[in-house]
């Protein structure tokens, strides 16, 4: 809940519209125990004093200043909060509380700023759009610089690498060992030799007995053949070794470099296989042309060549535009020239395609002179053609050039691919923060039930603990959402539960899974050995499902209605046989995700009640964040780990899945 917390009273007042239509009673409103008037608090940041209202800071309860975490910094003597941080950065942080927008000051170093944000518990994703581009650019630059440094130090030999891994490393980084370096130079040498022989083969050298110039290739057939064979053998061996050493053979075979390798050596083998047949000799000659592709093998040896290739690939759209506009212009001018020259006799412009040649030569300002217009109209249009050619070609070229220079200077990797990932990650994180608030509500709802219970049966200390852990603002917000639920007699659930509910109702109609009486019931006793442990710990009376007579649901929260024996059997079967529709969930169970990771305060959240004690880990996010459940409470002791599931509560209050890790 963002900076509109000041409008919460308004939102609560607006709920008056629901009251007359609601069919049941509304839940009890949270009381404001601490009738604390709004006061000014002083934040002393390394000597510079900032003052603000307490409610301003309370707007963002999941950050340091908004939560009780700031009490750690409270200085009793001076009655102010002292932070030993940079006062300049603090300005933008405090402005975030005041205006709701986080700005990134340009003079600030990116990593210093990140540290400040991390310290004060603010995620960088909420930087306002005005400053977000700048922030991301600086961050990427920084990351690239660090990565460059890292790559230079990367070539330490790990102690236990298999021969295969060593070979692969040797191939990829020739500097790692002398053998690799030797190999690198040898292959380079042979590539050069191969290309050279291809070239020299066609040079006429001396006359034969027939007084005719023959190319060297035909004069020294055997020598050239031996040379060729040697090169191809080296290349083949190299290719096979690379194939062997590659960590992912399939991936390697699809990579551009390996395709070039294959194309380089294939003509030779095809030539061996083919007989000296008249019909195919034409094709055979064509194949020899492909031998020139060996020159592309140099790109392994040259970074610049690779960058050039990448640039061309990334400028594909500009190149495409250039090609397209040229084609249009060529067709237009060729047509015009053809019809203009049609009249004149013995003209070379015999057809429109024949005029294409003239147009291209003219537009690129080559001007061979093998075709020239003779009529006046032809000459006029010819001059227009050459003038426009200059323009059309000049336009896209600077774009390509600047692209190349940018890429070259950055020594880029797949920039675009990374941007997409980052964008996705950013959106995912923002979505998590958003659903974090929903999940917070859903979880708090359950603990709200416990809250009421405690007021009936619990001790003073427990109540204090509970009421402190959720701020007044949040409890009021949750109460509001709760009233809405009561009004419409429906409940909020999160997407996960929603999907699974649908899945279950679908499956229920098809299968009757023996393990569980009804799948939703089964859920409440799901995969759990932890259930057993949970039972052990309910020293407290089993929490009654709070006084909600109007509640329409048939299920009671975490209330196994069945006897222990049945439950155990249910558990047993569950553990052994992960039913098909449960597998998705069991894999999710692995990740006891802290969906609200951004909300650092989740750690101390609610429910001191052990029976519910699911760790603050909320339901795993659908987008599959990975992370160890690092905020779990230690699971109750004797848990025979069968399948490794994890303690976790589902968001729907009536369906509690408990699994033990």
């Amino acid at each position, binding site marked *: 809940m963002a*900076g509109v917390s000041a409008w919460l009273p308004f939102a609560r007042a*607006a709920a008056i519209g629901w*009251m*007359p239509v*609601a069919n049941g009673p509304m839940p009890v409103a949270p009381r404001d125990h601490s009738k604390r008037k709004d006061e000014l608090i002083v934040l002393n940041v390394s000597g510079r004093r900032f003052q603000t209202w307490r409610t301003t800071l309370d707007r963002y309860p999941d950050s340091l200043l908004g939560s009780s975490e700031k009490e750690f910094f409270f200085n009793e003597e001076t009655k102010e909060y002292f932070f030993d941080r940079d006062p300049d950065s603090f300005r933008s942080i405090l402005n975030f509380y005041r205006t709701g927008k986080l700005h990134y000051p340009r003079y600030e170093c990116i990593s210093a700023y990140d540290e400040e944000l991390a310290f004060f518990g603010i995620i960088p994703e909420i930087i306002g759009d005005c400053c977000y581009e700048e922030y991301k650019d600086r961050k990427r630059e920084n990351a690239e610089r660090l990565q460059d440094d890292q790559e230079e130090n990367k070539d330490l030999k790990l102690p236990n690498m298999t021969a295969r891994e060593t070979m692969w490393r040797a191939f990829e980084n020739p500097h790692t060992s002398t053998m690799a370096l030797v190999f690198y130079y040898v292959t380079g040498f042979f590539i050069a030799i191969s290309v050279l022989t291809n070239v020299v083969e066609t040079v006429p050298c001396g006359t034969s007995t027939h007084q005719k110039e023959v190319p060297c290739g035909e004069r020294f057939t055997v020598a050239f053949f031996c040379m060729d064979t040697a090169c191809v053998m080296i290349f083949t061996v190299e290719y096979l070794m690379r194939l062997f050493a590659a960590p992912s053979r399939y991936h390697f075979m699809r990579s551009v470099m390996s395709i070039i390798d294959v194309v380089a050596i294939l003509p030779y083998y095809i030539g061996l296989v083919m007989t000296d047949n008249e019909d195919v000799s034409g094709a055979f000659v064509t194949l020899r042309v492909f031998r020139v592709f060996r020159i592309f093998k140099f790109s392994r040896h040259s970074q610049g060549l690779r960058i050039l290739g990448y640039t061309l690939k990334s400028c594909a759209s500009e190149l495409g535009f250039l090609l397209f506009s040229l084609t249009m212009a060529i067709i237009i001018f060729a047509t015009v020239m053809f019809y203009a020259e049609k009249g004149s006799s013995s003209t070379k412009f015999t057809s429109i395609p024949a005029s294409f040649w003239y147009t291209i030569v003219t537009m690129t300002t080559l001007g061979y002179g093998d075709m020239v217009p003779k009529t006046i109209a032809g000459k006029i249009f010819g001059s227009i053609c050459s003038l426009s050619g200059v323009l059309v070609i000049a336009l896209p070229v600077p774009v390509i050039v600047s692209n190349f220079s940018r890429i070259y200077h950055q020594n880029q990797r797949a920039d675009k691919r990374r941007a997409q990932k980052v964008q996705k990650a950013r959106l995912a994180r923002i979505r998590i923060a958003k659903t974090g608030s*929903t999940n917070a509500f859903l979880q708090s709802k359950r603990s709200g039930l416990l809250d009421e219970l405690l007021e009936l049966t619990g001790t003073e200390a427990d109540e204090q603990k509970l009421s402190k852990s959720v701020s007044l603002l949040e409890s009021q917000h949750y109460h509001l*959402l709760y009233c809405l639920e009561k009004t*419409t007699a429906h409940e909020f659930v999160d*997407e996960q539960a929603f999907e699974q*509910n649908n899945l279950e109702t679908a499956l229920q109609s098809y299968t009757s899974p023996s393990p569980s009486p009804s799948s939703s019931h089964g859920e409440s006793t799901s995969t759990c050995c932890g259930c057993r442990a949970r039972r052990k710990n309910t020293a407290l009376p089993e929490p009654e499902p709070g006084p909600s007579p109007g509640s329409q649901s048939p299920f009671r929260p975490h209330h196994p209605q069945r006897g222990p024996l049945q439950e155990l059997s249910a558990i047993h079967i569950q553990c052994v046989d992960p039913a098909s529709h449960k597998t998705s969930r069991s894999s999710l169970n692995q990740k006891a995700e802290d969906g609200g990771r951004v909300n650092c305060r989740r750690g101390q959240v609610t429910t001191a009640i052990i029976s519910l004690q699911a760790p603050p880990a909320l339901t795993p996010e659908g987008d599959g964040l990975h992370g160890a459940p690092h905020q779990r409470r230690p699971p109750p002791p004797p848990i025979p780990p069968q399948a490794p599931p994890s303690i976790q509560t589902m968001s729907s209050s009536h369906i509690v899945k408990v699994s033990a890790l």
Partner: protein
Amino acid sequence: MKTKNRDQSLSDSRELDGSYDQLTDSIEDDFELSTVCHRPESMDKLQDQTKFTKKELQVLYRGFKNECPSGVVNEENFKTIYSQFFPQGDSSMYAHFLFEAFDTDKNGSVSFEDFVFGLSIILRGTINDRLNWAFNLYDLNKDGCITKEEMLDIMKSIYDMMGKCTYPNMQDEAPREHVENFFQKMDRNKDGVVTIEEFIESCQKDENIMQSMQLFDNVI
């Protein structure tokens, strides 16, 4: 005393401004609107006209002004602010109805006075006042009676706020059924509309509604 001087100077400057016509300003394009500032009445006047204390007015105004520096809320802003409290559903229709109810002078924007008058009735008014306000909210065309269509619109907007992911699954007929329920309860003479008298009478007879109306005593 200090505040009194400030209020004095505020009202002076407003008079000096001449006829500060907020209506014409709001017709200008957006850039103009954002630089134009609407100042509310002085705190004393507001204190007389509403049932809030000075401190409460201060807190309310600070929150109001923070979110809307120009001093008025237009419907877009209003919807945005309200939707932040209901991340899962779509609260724009209900916010629209609320906006209509708050904007008593029908000028397309809610000023601080409108805001505070509305809140005063809801939070500090008698139960009858609150019921009247709620009736006013439901009566979309302000003709003194609620028809089934009006109620259906309101009900749909409330249900929209729940969003898609609910338990049990949200049926399409849920709002309609709810409206039928409502009319059964409220419409005494079964003439298809609910008048203000029927509404207040039925609400007063209903325990739950009376109790929930008391919720609003402690909101601020």
